[in-house]
């Protein structure tokens, strides 16, 4: 007779193999990182450029630039680039964050030779035509106005603004910003930053080795000149305090609580904070979810995270709760924070978190694009795949005492910033 109360034996993950990338350099000095390990006939080529939101004189420069690349170029009139790429079922994805712009091409390997030159032309010689730029800005402005109606957005925007008072990471947008960006500014932003010393290339998927020659042929056109280095001070602390932003008639409130973390990437404290965060609010079985969703039913979802950028790391808790239970939910969050800074985690809970984290790492490193993404995530922080070997070791070795010490070191202060957006 089968005893259903007894769980099947489980095998622990003790290591995860990360295949090292092939490292090459173009003649203009741009590094290439290659992952030729795909099982499907697809390829992704990504150019990453030090041209993030923080580099723009205006808040919108980087995002408008990345979104409008692909619109038109010296060789192609508006709409032509996307028409050519769409035809082959390939697609461009461009985006930017605080530190960098990303331009990616995804295609079936069989169409790479055809679409690669179009991709390169689009990135290197964009013209940002006035008409298309104006349309893009107007549509984005419209979208911004809709975002501004969301309590969650209001909360996040003000939280970032208050957390990073003296760094462009905290810059907020207003509707009029969309009326104040010109084609000329975009051209100048692009020219200034798209230079070889700012660029890195990543190629991943399943491809012929001659791809490296193609990359040399096309991307060596990027001029090898120095760009003006803009220096930003690291943000190591923030002002705490409680802030309320009114959104009339909202039936839920957005809540965000957090603080800047002064911790070196990849250090023991960093790993311990990642583990602590997972346990606290980083997965479905976390304490925040168990208490505030699964026990109290105050919310559809609650979580916490640690975000790491070039000039700052920060911890944040985020949720949307029913208007009437806002105060109760905030209190429960502080109760949970107090809990992790005063009591040791039980062996059972720690074991589950460890196993969950190792399983997630394994899943996140499944497939060639995921592996490449994992690499990019650590490479730009000055680390290598060794980050993960140390991470796995840290997860395996961490004790309840280590976590209590970490919690006391980082969460026992009054620097927490609390932002609530909702109806009074």
């Amino acid at each position, binding site marked *: 007779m*089968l005893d*259903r109360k007894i*769980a*099947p*034996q*489980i*095998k622990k*993950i003790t290591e995860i193999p990360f295949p090292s990338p092939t490292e090459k350099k173009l003649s203009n000095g741009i590094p290439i990182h290659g992952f030729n390990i795909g*099982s*499907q006939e*697809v390829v992704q080529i990504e150019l990453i450029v030090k041209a993030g939101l923080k580099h723009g004189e205006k808040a919108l420069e980087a995002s408008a630039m990345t979104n409008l690349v692909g619109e038109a170029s010296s060789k192609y009139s*508006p*709409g032509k680039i*996307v*028409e050519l790429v*769409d*035809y*082959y*079922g390939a*697609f461009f994805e461009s985006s930017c964050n605080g530190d960098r712009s990303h331009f990616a091409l*995804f*295609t*079936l390997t069989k169409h790479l030779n055809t679409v690669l030159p179009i991709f390169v032309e689009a990135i290197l010689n964009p013209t940002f035509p006035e008409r*298309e730029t*104006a*349309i893009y800005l*107007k*549509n984005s402005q*419209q*979208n911004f*106005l*809709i975002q*501004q*109606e*969301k309590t969650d957005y209001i909360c996040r925007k003000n939280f970032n603004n208050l957390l990073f008072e003296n760094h462009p990471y905290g810059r907020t947008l207003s*509707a009029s910003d969309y009326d104040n960006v010109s084609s000329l500014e975009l051209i100048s932003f692009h020219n200034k930053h798209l230079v070889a010393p700012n660029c890195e290339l990543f190629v991943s998927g399943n491809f012929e080795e001659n791809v490296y020659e193609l990359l040399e042929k096309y991307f060596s056109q990027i001029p090898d000149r120095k760009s003006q280095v803009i220096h930003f001070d690291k943000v190591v602390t923030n002002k705490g305090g409680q802030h309320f932003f009114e959104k009339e*008639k*909202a*039936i*839920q409130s957005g809540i965000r609580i957090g603080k800047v973390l002064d911790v070196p990437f990849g250090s023991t404290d960093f790993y311990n904070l990642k583990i602590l965060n997972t346990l606290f609010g980083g*997965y*479905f*079985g976390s304490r925040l979810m168990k208490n505030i*969703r*699964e*026990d*109290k*039913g*105050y*919310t*559809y979802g609650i979580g916490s995270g640690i975000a790491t950028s070039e000039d700052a790391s920060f911890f944040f808790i985020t949720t*949307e709760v*029913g208007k009437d239970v806002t105060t109760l939910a905030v209190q429960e969050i502080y109760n949970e924070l107090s809990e992790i800074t005063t009591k040791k985690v039980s062996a059972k809970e720690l074991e*589950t978190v460890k196993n*969950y984290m*190792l*399983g997630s790492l394994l*899943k996140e490193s*499944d*497939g060639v694009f995921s592996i490449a993404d994992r690499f990019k995530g650590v490479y730009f922080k000055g680390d290598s795949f060794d980050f993960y070997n140390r991470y796995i070791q840290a997860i395996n070795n961490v004790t309840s005492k280590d976590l209590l010490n970490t919690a006391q070191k980082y969460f026992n202060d009054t620097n927490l910033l609390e932002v609530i957006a909702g109806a009074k």
Partner: protein
Amino acid sequence: MIKYNKFTLENGLRVIVHEDNSTPIVAVSLVYDVGARDENPDKTGFAHLFEHLMFGGSENIELFDEPLQNAGGQNNAFTSNDLTNYYDTLPYQNIETALWLESDRMKSLAFTPKSLEVQRSVVIEEFKQRYLNQPYGDVWLLLRPLAYKIHPYQWATIGKEIKHIEDATMEDVKAFFYKHYGPKNAILSIAGNVEIKTVKALVEKWFGDIEGRQKYERNLPKEPKQTALRKLEVERDVPSDMIYLAFKMGNRLEKSYYVSDLISDVLSRGESSRLYRKLIKETHSFTDINAYISGSLDEGLFIVSGKPKKGVNLDEAYKLIRAELDIMQRELCDEKELTMVKNKIESTTVFGEMSVLNKAMGLGYFELLGDADMINKEEDKFHAITDKDLLEQSKIMFAESNCSVLYYKSKINNICWIEK
């Protein structure tokens, strides 16, 4: 091409296994043949509420998530109008944990009052977060009853109103479980680094002793043919007007489903598609425009939605969209457009097969439709479609009498626009 093995247990559970040795993980998908369309009109939102309860513990296992997480796994689930799909991914060595957990909750739930009480609140917060506290969040709560008068697609999976969720009782929960969650109403599909022989033995071990229970025979009222244009106008606190056109289209197995899907691609997939090019880029009369199909198993909807630019009113917006649909009804689309959308289908298929979870869920979905093998025939079905098929389908589908229109008007008029 996804290779797989299929077998059926004595209790009626269908099982599909796909081996992929290139991955360290395995995906387990369990799809139950029940969705919001199977609900009582006075107790809507129940299939989805029930999905939440499936995580509240089963007969022999107190909590579903914890043992799975302990085995390095992750899981989630979704409910649609048609079906309910639970899925787990975990290191392939630990597949048995997923089978143990999934089989126990198929065998019997714990039915604890606390779980029902809490999940009612959670789902009510979900209702608020996704449908009420978002600009345009209630669109589908309005559009469904406008388009469907008889068929249960007239309500959204979240339910018609919060009250229905508040009123759910334990009796309802138990009845629903025994009616819909038996092995005969489920398909288990597994994809990843596994061997068919081992998997078969493990599935037999954990699912084999579950009693067969009844097969749910679906007998839904058929939506009568629509004969006149329907129109609904509402006003809300949103920054801009929005328009929705919903046309009735064929069910998931009809050829017209595939044709309609390609029509939506020609109209709105990517920036080189027609609506985007003409209504945003060329005339800039809209700030946003989309065409897509609801993807339903029964007779579904073909949707065109858009946000007209300030200064373009909803009647004008309607006419502009209508003009593009009229062209689809009048003229063959050109060779190049058709090749493009077919190339996109090919590329989506290949990219989709990169993930074992996608493959497991896809196999389960097509088996639910009738035969898992359809997953490998989809692309050919799209490829066989001609420009004439698109024209003929457009003529039927885009008839004005087949359309429900929603005008979603903005009450806010304080936005300052500076034309450049």
